[in-house]
């Protein structure tokens, strides 16, 4: 039998079966490759829309201010604001942060305020929500070259700082974001040192435009936007507006800040929005407003020059970028 070329006719695959099998194989390869390609695309494609599940903030006063601070510009939708976030502790993919931060625990929460103050104090969430809220619609300009218009709810940081009474030695304020690798398992690949830290000069911190935001669109902050409480400094690049704050420390010197630690040549302590000082890798002269196709001019101090330019009188903003 061995070596014989005579294969019993019963073992020869009939042509029809052979072609059927071929057809089946081809179909499987078609389906498999299509699913693989489409699936790969899907993993990179933007995520679906985000729903607003925040609680309504009832203690809002001063709603009239909102229109005056972002001219008559169109406010971005909730989906845009809550579906496109830089929050490296959760993900470096802006459209993925919302899903990754979904289960982040923001209650209980406390913010420890100390350093060079007369009355150090720890505020819990209830204390923070007792501050009289204002609604402020600000332009928000990211250092990456995109911008939004966001209706924040919050209170001026100056109110909180006044309560703890900074000493005469205090010149700067340092902020720190909550950090827990168990709740932020992807933070290992963020490429920046954590916890995230930021800082302001005391006069910047006391400026009436500087907010501690607890909400947006009239409801409590979504996790991905820095719940339960975050800083908003509208004339500076977005990364200065540190999220999910747990620590505020008054100091007598410039505190270290995360992005200038990561790359001192590219990100300075001040990081004021400035169309005349380019980022080393891209221009800051223009920006893309989310929701618009074309680009628009970036304004000095993000359009708040009238309110804040005096803080930097006599400074060379190319040196102190």
């Amino acid at each position: 039998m061995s070596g014989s070329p005579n294969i019993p006719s019963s073992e020869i695959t009939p042509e029809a079966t052979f072609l059927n099998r071929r057809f089946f194989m081809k179909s499987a390869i078609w389906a498999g490759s299509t699913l693989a390609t489409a699936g790969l695309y899907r993993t990179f494609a933007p995520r679906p829309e985000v729903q607003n599940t925040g609680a309504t903030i009832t203690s809002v006063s001063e709603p009239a201010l909102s229109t005056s601070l972002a001219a008559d510009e169109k406010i971005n939708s909730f989906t845009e604001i809550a579906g496109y976030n830089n929050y490296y502790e959760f993900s470096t993919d802006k459209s993925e942060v919302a899903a990754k931060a979904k289960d982040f625990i923001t209650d209980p929460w406390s913010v420890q305020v100390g350093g060079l103050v007369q009355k150090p104090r720890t505020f819990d969430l209830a204390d923070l929500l007792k501050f009289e809220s204002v609604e402020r619609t600000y332009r928000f300009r990211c250092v990456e070259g995109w911008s939004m218009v966001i209706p924040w709810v919050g209170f001026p940081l100056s109110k909180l700082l006044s309560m703890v009474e900074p000493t005469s030695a205090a010149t700067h304020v340092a902020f720190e974001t909550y950090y827990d690798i168990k709740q932020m398992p992807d933070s290992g690949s963020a490429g920046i040192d954590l916890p995230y830290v930021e800082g302001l000069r005391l006069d910047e911190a006391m400026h009436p435009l500087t907010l501690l935001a607890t909400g947006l669109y009239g409801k409590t902050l979504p996790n991905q936007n820095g719940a339960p409480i975050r800083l908003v400094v509208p004339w500076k690049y977005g990364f200065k507006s540190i999220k999910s704050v747990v620590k505020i420390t008054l100091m007598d010197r410039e505190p270290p800040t995360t992005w200038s630690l990561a790359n001192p040549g590219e990100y300075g302590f001040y990081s004021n929005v400035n169309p005349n000082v380019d980022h080393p890798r891209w221009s800051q002269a223009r920006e893309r407003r989310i929701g618009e196709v074309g680009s628009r001019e970036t304004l000095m101090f993000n359009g708040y020059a009238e309110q804040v330019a005096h803080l930097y009188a006599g400074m060379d903003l190319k040196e102190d970028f």
Partner: protein
Amino acid sequence: MTLSSDSRFHRQLVVFNGLLPALLILLDAWRGKLGANPVEFITRATGVLTLVFLVITLMVTPLRKIYGWNWLLKQRRLLGLYAFFYGVAHLLTYLAYDRDWQLQTVIGDVYKRPFIAIGMFSFALMIPLAVTSTNAMIKKLGGQRWAQLHRLTYYITIGGVLHYYIIVKSDITYPLIFAIVVAVLLGYRVVTSLKKARGVAPRAS
């Protein structure tokens, strides 16, 4: 005829799967599902797809030599053309939305931003390869010279990965994955050519 010699089938598979991401991007654009910053998404997607097809092109030789998948060779030029296709889409997105068609500003941008210069240079190197991808051009150049010219793919891919690496703000995971894969694929070529050189070297005695 076996499946692995059915080059018409292979061709159809490559044509369809190469086009599929572009179709999906168009579909998502039409449904308004490209996220909050569609321009950024399209720019990144077309850039990554260019790199993906360059990497697949570079996989053909190792796969042939290691597994004997010689049938892949017939699809290699098409894979390369897909890299070029997504590269063109990437460049057009940049010109249309980053430069607003102000073409005179491109020169300044190339000068000011090294990663743009690297990207432009790599793209420019792809043009002669796309132009010479026809059968007639292979005949005209001669197989050896043609193959030599198309080794530019190595430099194009390295340039592409570098371009990606520089623009990333801090999370270098994806550019790093590309860098490792490309290093392995190019390392394979270095090793085989070294082995070959040693094999044919005259014996000293």
